[in-house]
């Protein structure tokens, strides 16, 4: 086993232990707990928080991927060309909106709970994927496109068999950026009463219980790092296969 | 005079350049020819110490380069490379004056030198000084690259495939320009190329390298008429050799008295051109003129006898 894979196994095991058997870590967190306070977060099961956190991220990201890729395909077709400059501006300027602000602004419209978090993650998540897919589809090697036309592929066939596969590494980069932001923003979602791991951290901040902050921070940090790593691996793999390292 | 003395460069236990010795006379052009991987660029880059020799010595006018500070040495040696390597964010004038500025020349002197060089390369200073490299054609960029290399009047000009990025027509003109400027300034030039045609056209001396070794060093005529190895013969291009040889000689060298029919040829034309005209127009002799007045003729017979001097090696 390579050193990187060994490290991955360790991190995954640590994460599972933190989520499933948090009481094993009580001696470690003890010194961070104020006198008389509870050491290990027990208001809700960490497993249910983790699943709900990842669930919100997964649903929002999946929807964002579908919408973003479809939109990017539309604006890079000849019929949608008029919308391309506008799309670039929206993608560029839209990403300057802070994710937290998007989340906070969704509350007045949707109330508290998972709803505004889902919508904020979805809306914000679209932009990086949209931008990267757009770039990927509009910067294909001209010789390859010429060849695809030359061998008689229809527009649809070109899109499915040539353009999307070639743009895939860039699309995956967009997805990675988007998912990592979503994991972070979902954490803040607990301030608007979404059921996520942010709850643990917020509870710690409100009661000055550092051990809660550390538990929540560690779990969500490890999830983020592992998912980032997995998506990077996937990206490297597709790049290698396409020979565009 | 540049002396390369038994110089060797070893990379990972393999010799890229192996025990090469050669002497380059001042005010001449020496062309180093070889295929890619022959070590010709490494040899060139050891002279301004962009690559440090493993063993051996380079002397410029008797002074070993190893003893000089690297950057001071490089500022004394002009360096022009394929694709010119101009600084894209500097104007033409600033590019050309790069080395004089490094040497701390006075502003007025730099200004005058830039103008002088631009004029030498037929680029009116008023028009070109303040342009950026991206606003020039490929040929102009290449000329600025050479002008930059010549700016501080270096002892020696090193050129690594200087015309490599140019298309054939501009290339021929650039070669002619270089030849003219070298004759005007009396510069010493060491030039690396993979193109034997170019080496023969430009070089007073041609050095052929193969697998890190110097296999032959001589005048173009020697290289063509008497290739030292199979490899050199191949580089010179078997069947083309008589034609290459003829291209080195001018009509005036086999001029005979007499007259001939048809359009005259200038005495500076090469025998290759003369042969071509004979064959195309079906004549066996051509009139030759100097400054527009007839001075004699050249015959197909004479041309042929010059081309027959060649024998296969071994």
């Amino acid at each position, binding site marked *: 086993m390579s050193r990187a894979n060994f490290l991955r196994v360790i991190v995954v095991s640590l994460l599972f232990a933190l989520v499933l058997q948090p009481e094993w870590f009580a001696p470690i967190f003890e010194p961070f707990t104020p006198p008389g306070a509870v050491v290990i977060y027990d208001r809700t099961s960490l497993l249910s928080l983790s699943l709900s956190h990842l669930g919100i991220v997964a649903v929002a990201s999946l929807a964002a991927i579908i919408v973003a890729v479809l939109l990017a395909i539309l604006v890079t077709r000849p019929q949608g060309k008029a919308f391309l400059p506008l799309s670039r501006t929206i993608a560029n300027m839209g990403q300057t909106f*802070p994710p937290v602000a998007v989340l906070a602004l969704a*509350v007045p419209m949707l109330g508290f709970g998972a709803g505004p978090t889902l919508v904020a993650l979805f809306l914000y998540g679209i932009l990086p994927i949209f931008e990267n897919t757009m770039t990927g589809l509009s910067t294909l090697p001209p010789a390859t496109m010429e060849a695809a036309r030359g061998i008689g592929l229809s527009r649809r066939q070109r899109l499915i068999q040539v353009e999307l596969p070639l743009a895939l590494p860039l699309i995956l980069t967009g997805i990675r950026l988007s998912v990592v932001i979503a994991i972070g923003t979902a954490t*803040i979602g607990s301030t608007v009463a979404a059921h996520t791991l942010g709850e643990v951290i917020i509870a710690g901040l409100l009661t000055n219980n*550092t051990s809660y902050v550390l538990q929540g921070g560690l779990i969500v940090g490890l999830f983020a*790092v592992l998912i980032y790593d997995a998506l990077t691996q996937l990206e490297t793999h597709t790049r290698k296969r396409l020979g565009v390292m | 005079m540049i002396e390369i003395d038994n110089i060797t460069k070893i990379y990972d236990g393999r010799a890229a350049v192996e025990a090469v010795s050669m002497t380059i006379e001042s005010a001449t052009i020496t062309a180093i020819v070889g295929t890619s991987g022959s070590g010709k660029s490494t040899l060139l880059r050891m002279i301004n110490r962009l690559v440090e020799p493993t063993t051996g010595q380079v002397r410029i006018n008797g002074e070993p380069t190893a003893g000089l500070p690297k950057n001071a*040495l*490089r500022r004394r040696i002009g360096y022009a490379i*394929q694709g010119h390597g101009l*600084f894209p964010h500097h104007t033409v004038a600033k590019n050309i004056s790069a080395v004089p500025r490094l040497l701390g020349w006075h502003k007025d002197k730099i200004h005058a030198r830039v103008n002088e060089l631009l004029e030498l390369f037929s680029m009116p200073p008023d028009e070109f000084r303040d342009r950026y490299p991206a606003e020039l054609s490929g040929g102009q960029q290449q000329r600025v690259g050479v002008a930059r290399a010549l700016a501080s009047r270096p002892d020696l000009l090193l050129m690594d495939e200087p015309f490599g990025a140019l298309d054939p027509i501009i290339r021929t003109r650039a070669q002619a320009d270089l030849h003219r400027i070298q004759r005007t300034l009396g510069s010493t030039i060491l030039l690396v190329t993979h193109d034997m045609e170019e080496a023969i056209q430009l070089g007073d001396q041609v050095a052929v390298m193969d697998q890190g070794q110097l296999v032959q060093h001589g005048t173009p005529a020697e290289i063509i008429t008497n290739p030292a190895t199979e490899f050199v013969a191949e580089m010179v291009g078997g069947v083309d050799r008589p034609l290459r040889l003829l291209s080195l000689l001018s009509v005036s060298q086999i001029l005979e008295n007499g007259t001939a029919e048809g359009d005259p040829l200038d005495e500076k034309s090469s025998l290759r051109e003369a042969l071509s005209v004979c064959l195309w127009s079906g004549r066996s002799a051509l009139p030759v003129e100097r400054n527009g007045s007839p001075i004699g003729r050249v015959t197909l017979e004479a041309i042929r006898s010059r081309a027959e001097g060649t024998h296969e090696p071994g």
Partner: protein
Amino acid sequence: MPNRIKSVVSGPGLLFASLGLVALFAPFLTLAANRIVAGEGVRVWDVAGPEAIIPGMVGVVIGLALGLPSAWQSVRFTGSLVGIAALVWLLMQGSTSLLEGAGTYARVSLGSGFWCLLAILLLLAADALSSLSPGPKMRSALLAVAIIVSALVLWSGALTDLSIFREYANRQDAFFNAAWRHLGLAFGSLVVAAAIGFPLGVYCHRNQGLRGAVLPVLSFLQTIPSLAMFGIMIPLLAWVGSTIPGARELGVVGIGFLPAFLALVIYSLLPVVANTVAGLEATPILTLDAARGMGMTRHQRLKQIQLPLGLPVMLAGLRIVLVQNIGLAVIAGLIGGGGFGTFVFQGLNQTATDLILLGALPTVILALISAITMDILVELARPNQMRHG
């Protein structure tokens, strides 16, 4: 649609016009009995008397209509300005007239119709501008004019009847403190990150081994969710404050400005270092070989060749950092670090929408202004040859 019309009418313009007309039917303002309860939506034609409404609505429709012709981009841009001016007029008239006789605690807030129309008109402006593609100087001028005009409108007091400005009036001092704190967090951390990141980037450029060690660590740190990072900084600094003698006196405590500042610096390092390395590598190999061959020292090559050529990429890194930090500084509000986040989270706690807006809107505007300014700087830093194309 026949092709002839298609080429005359701008596709986005048509979309904006249709969406805009629909948005006119959505509640333009909302009227609530007090600042906490949800308001009642009021449609645009009901917000004031006809003498105020008709010019406003006509202005919006004209603005949308001017967005239609595809050939005249400056007309389209003018249309967006006309439309936005009409919106402001409607707000001024509507907020005052709705409050008349509605009680002391009554509040008028911005409705979905207003937000949609504003977004549509801004998109129209952006679409027209992206086709006009003004140069960096023109863009700076436009930005300056936009800022000055907005400031004048706010200054004039014409909009003070709106709920968000009531919230502002109630905490004017706190607002400016928060603004300074927010700027201090975002720009201060940028300066510190640049001071550490540039030299680190230069070393990483020179030393492959160092780069292989530093960049993965920084991208790992970047991945950690912000709330977790801010949270972890608190115990860390509290520990430093209580263990290292003298640290507490220097202000190193677990809560407040410092943990937020430090977290922002850590997040900023990756873009600064990675873009410095990328910028230094932007110099073509041949250019660098020529510089070396003519006897430039390493320092001269760095200063005269690599830095000027890499500057746009490095500035692009600072743009990422600045925009990112302005957004992340909101989280500081959760850990007592101050800034606009304070209002956002107070607003969320009190379910007071306009207090949330009072925190979120300045953050968004600040981020947009910074992004546009940095984009202009990046373009100005681009070496001439690229601008000439």
